[in-house]
């Protein structure tokens, strides 16, 4: 129905939006190779010096290791709890079922400051010292929904007849689970886990409130940006972080289909909660 003029206008618009989306991000990567200590455009040359500096900076190393540790622990917890809820909500319908899926989305649907401040008040109230574990608890809370969303979407698409056939052929409950259900959902589990890790690895808004003296990598970056220090090194670190968050997402998209990696799958869970 679109006239040729409309199509041309739409094409130009799409091109502009793509430029808007990618130029700023690529700019950081370009600056990461700038030998100058004060950033100004255009860059003054090409060097790998700042990657070298970042690699040998013990603060960056510690922060990186902490982020990986937190990400793995939070992802582990999210996998167990998220798949338990997904199975329960898929297999059983009961009163309050929709309330549960709504509850799972809350930590990422509510503004980050709310979740962060709430967790901080809670830890203070319960006299829990802020540590690696308080960060993990915060991250796991909003990572659960990533696993849940991916898994329940897959379970709903998997025909129940497969499990029925397995049991008709005499498989026991656990055999059906292990040999029939699990293989059909394993990619959803992996992509959920990758997304949970990416979310945790990048999180800063809530982490500010749940980390004590420790720095995760985003907290370290935030600190340097706020003080305007070590910016050339930050360029190098941020370039690597971009790479490290995008790789799991691309993997997840490859494994489970691009539709699985929209963060707005949150919206789907919200509307599920509101539907019935």
């Amino acid at each position, binding site marked *: 129905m679109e006239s040729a003029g409309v199509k041309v206008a739409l094409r130009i618009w799409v091109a502009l939006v793509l430029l808007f989306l990618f130029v*700023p991000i690529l700019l950081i990567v370009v600056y990461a190779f700038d030998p100058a200590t004060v950033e100004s455009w255009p860059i003054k040359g090409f060097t790998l010096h700042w990657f070298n500096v970042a690699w040998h900076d013990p603060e960056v190393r510690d922060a990186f290791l902490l982020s990986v540790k937190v990400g793995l622990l939070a992802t582990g917890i999210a996998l167990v709890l998220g798949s338990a809820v997904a199975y*329960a909500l898929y297999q059983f319908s009961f009163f309050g079922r929709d309330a549960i899926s709504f509850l799972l989305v809350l930590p990422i649907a509510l503004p980050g400051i709310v979740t962060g401040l709430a967790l901080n008040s809670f830890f203070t109230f319960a006299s829990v010292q802020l540590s690696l574990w308080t960060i993990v608890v915060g991250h796991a809370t909003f990572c659960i929904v990533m696993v849940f969303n991916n898994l329940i979407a897959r379970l709903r698409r998997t025909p129940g007849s497969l499990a029925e056939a397995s049991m008709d052929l005499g498989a026991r409950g656990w055999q059906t689970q292990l040999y029939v259900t699990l293989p059909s959902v394993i990619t959803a589990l992996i992509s959920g886990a990758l997304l949970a890790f990416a979310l945790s690895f990048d999180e800063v808004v809530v982490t500010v409130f749940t980390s004590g003296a420790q720095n995760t990598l985003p907290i370290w970056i935030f600190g340097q940006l706020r003080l305007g220090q070590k910016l050339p090194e930050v360029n190098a670190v941020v370039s690597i972080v971009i790479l490290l968050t995008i790789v799991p997402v691309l993997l997840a998209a490859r494994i489970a289909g691009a539709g699985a990696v929209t963060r707005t799958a949150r919206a789907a869970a919200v509307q599920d909660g509101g539907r019935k």
Partner: protein
Amino acid sequence: MTQNIADRGAASEALPRSGAWSRIGAALWRRPWARATLLLTPPLAWFLIIYLAALVVLLITAFWQTNPFTSNLEHIWNLQNFVQVFTTPAYLQDIGRTVGLAAGVTVVDGLVAFPFAYYMARVATRRTRTVLYVAILLPLWASYLAKVYAWQLVFTKDGVLNWSLGKVSLGPLNLINTNWAVFIAFCYIWLPYMAIPVYAALDRIPASMIEASQDLGGRTWRTTRSVILPLALPGIVAGSIFTFSLTLGDYITPQLLGGTNSVFIGSVAYTSFLSNNVPLGAAMAMVPIAIMIVYLLGARALGAFREL
């Protein structure tokens, strides 16, 4: 169907089997409620004991206060924090500024995303569509701090923007440390959150509806306004929930890009937290919660959730 599986499962219990695990498994299999309880208890306990309890503590904290001399939290119930939030002109201005900003970001993102999503859903070839989909997904997941910082590099005095403006002989434009910088960065960061649900909604509109509109004489504009827009509305509303909510509660972008005037709800809550006045921050945090509840109820009344 679930019931069906359970029946057949029960039938297979008739097969001979031995061992404690099998007996436990069999017992569980015959009692769906027991399995449901077993599955649901750990995650629900996590959410009740940690997350909901935390929200309740936040609410309670808003009614307490910090001793101005000792900085200790005092468990004295009063409404002082709320009174302070709602009677201090500066705080009211901050709330107004935040809501205005969030609304502005939402509208701009809607306007930018709609033609983009429309092109993806209705004009692009299948191949282009996939490429565009990935193109919108990548910035969605690229590090949040990177996205904020990128705009610092663009707007800074010797940055790309002023260099480009210099090339076309336009004066330098110092946007860094202004609310404009914050506004543009927010539009940028949350754009994919709007584009994806709008695309999903547009993609679901059956071609037959548009053809019907055209058969009935609807021109491009009329079809867009009377057929496509109403059908895409749930997607737009779903996207707006994100752009609005995420802007309401952000304190990092204003801190990194804004100036002295860039104080928003999140910044006030964050500053009170830093200065050990968590109760005031808690009272401030109730404002975005209240706004989001009203917003979600409104979206629901519009049928946005049901339609999606």
